[in-house]
């Protein structure tokens, strides 16, 4: 069980969902993230940039059929932060109960 640590960066709804999506796979395509979140690419780019600057996410470009495709991956630090944040949320809910 991870130690509960509330993370202000991950707590933002879009960024939380991005981290949960990335935690469930090894890599997720930019387009797939946009579709799952229901946001436009500029919004996603901004959120990924913030997570990347914190060291939680890395991105890379591939060029299938000559067109660029961006893939995002959660880092070890990102997984740890997400796990701690979810544990903190559960702890908050249990305190009320």
């Amino acid at each position, binding site marked *: 069980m991870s130690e509960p640590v509330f993370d202000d960066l991950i*707590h933002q*709804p879009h960024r*939380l*969902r991005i981290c*949960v*999506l990335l*935690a*469930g*796979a*090894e*890599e*997720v*395509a930019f*387009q*797939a*993230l946009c*579709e*799952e979140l229901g946001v436009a690419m500029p919004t996603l780019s901004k959120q990924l940039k913030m997570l990347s600057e914190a060291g939680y996410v890395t991105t890379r470009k591939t060029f*299938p059929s000559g067109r660029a*495709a961006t*893939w995002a991956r959660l880092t070890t630090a990102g*997984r740890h932060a997400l796990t701690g944040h*979810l544990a903190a*949320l*559960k702890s*908050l*809910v249990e*305190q*009320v109960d």
Partner: protein
Amino acid sequence: MADDFDAQAALDAATDTRTHLADRVQTPWWYHPCYGIFIAVTCLALGLPAGTISHQHRLYLFLLVIIGNFAVTQVYRHVTGVWIQTAVGPRTRRLMIEFAIGLVLAFAASVANYLWHGPWWTPVVIGAAAIVAATLFGRHYDEALRAEMRAGASP
């Protein structure tokens, strides 16, 4: 209190997100049969007796498997937008081990057929069984994968 409502809503959003991701990981119908065919071709390359196929053609078959494997993987990534290569929980780990054992047995039987000058049809039969097994196993594995993803397991 705002904090506990926010906390519960955030947890619910995380659960909902996991479910959506699991639903997204729908393997195209051709994916597992293709892998079965690659296994079958490998069995042929390993197991066809000397004289039925030249060493050069055996090499071509191996190259075909490598290139085909890469191509199928790239198409899968493009179609789903998600890449998961490893098991995510105890059930998928167990299934992967079972699959690996089956693969080793199929290849070992093919190599044995080559080494002991067995009939040409042995690797053909092994390959045909591999196509069926890979298709059925693949679908079973996918169901287990999606169930474990919904439960929060991750690679």
